């Protein structure tokens, strides 16, 4: 059944954070102020690559209203940050490697004074030759950006011998695919408030996807114990991976420390563009061969990822891409070689889909091309080579066995949209202008969740009957819009029987939440679900046990309900099924809070392949597009998404994640590219960086969740945060080919490619409307 409000019934709930959001009452961390606060700004390098020979801050320091000007000399601890490997300077010492590199920071009474102070800081640069092409970066001629060279990370995977394999192929397709430097474009730019309290502790109010990671990194930079830092990190006005890494926090913390005043940051959009992360632009070359029947024989892939000047999670993104260019298909011979390469372009890093978006666009494109050579239906070719539930994963690792691949394929191929394929003259087509063509295409995704083998991936949380009788659910996961609070509330109501009013959810404060790992990699809902599974028997034993002491009934006859404790056999009769003791009364009798905690790790494969996943979400997407051959513009008319991710925890959230993810994929396919030239951003704001508006979303989106899991599967809901953003682009490419017979290899799709060659003929048609 398609997912919508009507079909979801009472399970479609208003979000607990909704009323404040729609009324404009929710205070985001960038809305906060404090008495006596100063405004912070960062001086960034105007050059993509240069040596710093001198920094003079005296004039800026002398300006009235300036309270501090800091440089690398003022960083007491490690002058580096980076989640996986700290190689990015907080404040550059002697060299800048991109136009976002920070050289100095200022705290002043007003924004105007802070900006004037930046203009008064004198930095002498000696320009250095730049590396703007990732392949050139790997040559001996290229300037070396780091002591270890320009290669951040290489990841390969081999099986058999592709040379032998290609010799026996009946058909081989070779193609090179290019993907854009996509920007997260969270509507709330980076910022926050930084305060050292009277107790000497630092409180950071700034969005992040992993408060404890920020705490660790900031402690390292400030050279203070982690216990002296509190990170308050929710709510967040969008992130999509982009706020996972530190951004303004080091500067806010350092300036607050130097001035002993609260310091506020709120990046302008241009500041956000120049300094912030983007999706890795990738060049993916694939050579794929099949036998005469369409069986895959050999698949050779080379990935070049432009990771920009510093690491952040560039290596991990590459690992993910290498895994996903293999995907759900079975090959005899495999040779995948991936390179994540330093350049003087903008920072690349973690972004919803995490390397899967680029990989799957390329991989699915190969199937469409091979099918044509074989004279086969492209979906038949996929099914012929599709993994079976018991097959090993892409890295030959054991994975959780499900029917997901077949389920989404069956659902997609029986969708009305896919059934329409090949049939012309639908009502919609008849109304179309003569210079438009429509087509239908589809693509498949098997997307990993969790951080993968070899990376610490903890989960956990806490349930407490608080002193005031509220049931407190305490987790370290962050709310950046995905609806995590709503999903947690819904699980507590549906699984435990609490009423919404009984519950208090506490997240986003490192002083009070247990460390349950990051809110990334489509993992939070899975981790919260598993936590509640673990906590339920513990919490029942603790709280029902306390209740039993006070109401003279054995604990095993008691259950949680709305407002308090009930008898299990209370029956449906309202007279007998009454609340025996309310939560506040029970809490009062207990005196102390009753608390249960769980700690565990995200399920991981029994493998030694770093990054290999154990849990996957499957999706099959069909799309109908209209290509305007006069303008070359593509319009998406209808989308169908089948998603096998286990039980739907929160229908509104699920639908929103798939619809929202697909919008990011739409931009990736059609319009979005943070263009760089000579290491400088050409697209500096949303006037030239084009994210989809409501006008690009004219079509319908049908979402079909497939909830069924094998009976023995106890991993619960799989992640859905990313999968919606990866499958649409290759489906659009297939649909364009169906419409106009042109193969797309580069995203975003250049309209010129799709303009009809016989332009004059079309123009005549346009004029005469024949």
């Amino acid at each position, binding site marked *: 059944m398609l997912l919508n409000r009507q079909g979801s019934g009472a399970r479609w709930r208003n*979000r607990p954070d909704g009323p404040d959001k729609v009324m404009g009452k929710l205070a985001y961390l960038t*809305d906060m102020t404090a008495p006596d606060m100063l405004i912070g700004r960062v001086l960034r390098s105007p050059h993509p690559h240069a040596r710093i020979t001198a920094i003079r801050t005296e004039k800026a320091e002398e300006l009235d209203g300036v309270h501090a000007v800091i440089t690398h000399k003022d960083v007491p601890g490690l002058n580096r940050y980076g989640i996986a490997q700290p190689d990015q300077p907080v404040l550059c010492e002697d060299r800048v490697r991109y136009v976002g590199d920070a050289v100095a920071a200022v705290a002043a009474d007003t924004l105007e004074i802070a900006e004037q102070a930046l203009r008064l800081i004198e930095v002498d640069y000696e320009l250095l030759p730049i590396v703007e092409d990732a392949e050139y970066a790997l040559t001996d001629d290229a300037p070396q950006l780091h002591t270890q060279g320009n290669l951040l990370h290489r990841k390969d995977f081999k099986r058999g011998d592709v040379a032998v394999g290609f010799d026996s192929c009946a058909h081989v397709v070779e193609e090179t695919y290019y993907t854009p430097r996509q920007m997260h474009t969270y509507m709330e*730019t980076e910022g926050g408030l930084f305060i050292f309290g009277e107790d000497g502790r630092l409180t950071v109010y700034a969005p992040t996807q992993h408060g404890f990671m920020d705490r660790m990194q900031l402690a390292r930079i400030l050279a203070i114990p982690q216990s002296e830092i509190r990170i308050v990190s929710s709510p967040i006005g969008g992130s999509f991976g982009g706020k996972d890494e530190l951004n303004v926090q080091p500067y806010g913390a350092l300036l607050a420390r130097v001035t002993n005043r609260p310091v506020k940051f709120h990046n302008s959009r241009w500041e956000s563009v120049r300094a912030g992360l983007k999706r890795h632009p990738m060049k993916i070359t694939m050579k794929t061969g099949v036998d005469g029947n369409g069986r895959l024989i050999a698949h050779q892939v080379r990935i070049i990822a432009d990771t920009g000047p510093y690491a952040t999670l560039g290596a991990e993104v590459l690992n993910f891409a290498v895994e996903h260019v293999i995907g759900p298909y079975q090959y005899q011979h495999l040779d995948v070689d991936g390179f994540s390469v330093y350049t003087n372009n903008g920072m690349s890093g973690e972004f919803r889909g995490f390397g899967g978006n680029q990989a799957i666009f390329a991989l699915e494109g190969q199937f469409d091309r091979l099918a044509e050579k074989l004279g086969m239906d492209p979906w038949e070719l996929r099914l012929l080579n599709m993994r079976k539930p018991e097959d090993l994963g892409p890295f030959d690792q054991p994975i959780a066995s499900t029917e997901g691949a077949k389920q989404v394929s069956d659902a997609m191929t029986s969708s009305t949209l896919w059934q329409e394929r090949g049939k012309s003259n639908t009502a919609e087509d008849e109304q179309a202008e003569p210079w438009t063509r429509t087509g239908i295409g589809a693509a498949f995704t098997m997307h990993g969740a969790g951080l993968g083998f070899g990376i610490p991936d903890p989960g956990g949380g806490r349930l407490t009957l608080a002193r005031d009788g509220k049931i407190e659910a305490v987790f370290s996961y962050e709310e950046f819009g995905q609806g995590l609070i709503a999903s947690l509330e819904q699980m507590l109501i549906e699984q435990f029987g609490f009423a919404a009013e009984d519950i208090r959810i506490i997240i986003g404060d490192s002083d009070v939440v247990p460390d349950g790992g990051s809110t990334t990699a489509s993992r939070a809902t899975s981790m919260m679900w598993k936590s509640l599974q673990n906590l339920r028997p513990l919490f029942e034993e603790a709280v029902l046990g306390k209740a039993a002491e006070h109401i003279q009934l054995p604990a095993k006859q008691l259950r949680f309900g709305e407002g308090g404790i009930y008898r299990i056999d209370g029956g449906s009769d309202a007279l007998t099924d009454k609340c025996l003791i309310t939560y506040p009364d029970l809490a009062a009798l207990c005196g102390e809070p009753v608390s249960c905690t769980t700690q565990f790790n995200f399920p991981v494969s029994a493998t030694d392949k770093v990054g290999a996943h154990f849990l996957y979400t499957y999706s099959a997407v069909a799309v109908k597009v209209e290509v305007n051959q006069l303008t070359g513009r593509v319009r998406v008319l209808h989308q169908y998404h089948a998603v096998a991710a286990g039980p739907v925890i929160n229908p509104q959230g699920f639908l929103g994640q798939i619809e929202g993810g697909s919008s990011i994929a739409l931009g990736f396919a059609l319009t979005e590219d943070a263009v760089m030239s000579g290491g400088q951003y050409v697209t500096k704001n949303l006037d030239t960086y084009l994210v989809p508006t409501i006008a690009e979303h004219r079509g319908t989106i049908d979402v079909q969740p497939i909830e069924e899991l094998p009976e023995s599967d106890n991993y619960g809901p799989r992640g859905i945060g990313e999968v919606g953003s990866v499958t649409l682009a290759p489906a659009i490419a297939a649909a364009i080919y169906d419409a106009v017979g042109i193969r797309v290899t580069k995203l975003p799709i250049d309209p010129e490619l799709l303009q009809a060659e016989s332009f004059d003929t079309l123009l005549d048609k346009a004029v005469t409307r024949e």
Partner: protein
Amino acid sequence: MKDSMKPVSPLDTSSIPCTINGSEINLNVPPAKRLLSVLRDDLAMTGTKRSCDIGRCGACMVMVDGVPVNSCLTMAYQCTGKSITTIEGISASGMDPIQRAFLQEGGFQCGYCTPGMIISVKALLDHNPDPSALEIEEALSGNICRCTGYGGIKRAVQKAIEWRKEAYESITD
């Protein structure tokens, strides 16, 4: 030299009378200051959001005499004698049906674009209670939402149109 010919420092303030959410007020701010900054920084009304600063994203939208404008592109002097309505004004007497529709249909996720989006919908429906799909598209194409893919927003607008119709019919019956 006449007073009006004297060069003015961009930081000199002047008194600008206007109405904000029904209350008459004299703003003492530099005339060229952005309305967005006046609202957020001087008046601590942070429901109006800052995002692109160039009038492209709509997060900062307010109504000036009922017309939706980007407050990042509106200078304080342009508000002289005008009536400004922000999201706080719409919320002042409880949840507007448009806001309730957004809540029930899931027309938001992170919520950062939502105040501006609600302003645009309100301005649209106040002038055109039964807009076509194209008119809705045009009215909202200056409001970028990065989270929802606009599905929930479109459903919320339809719901709000229905409710306002019902309310109107119940009054006129």
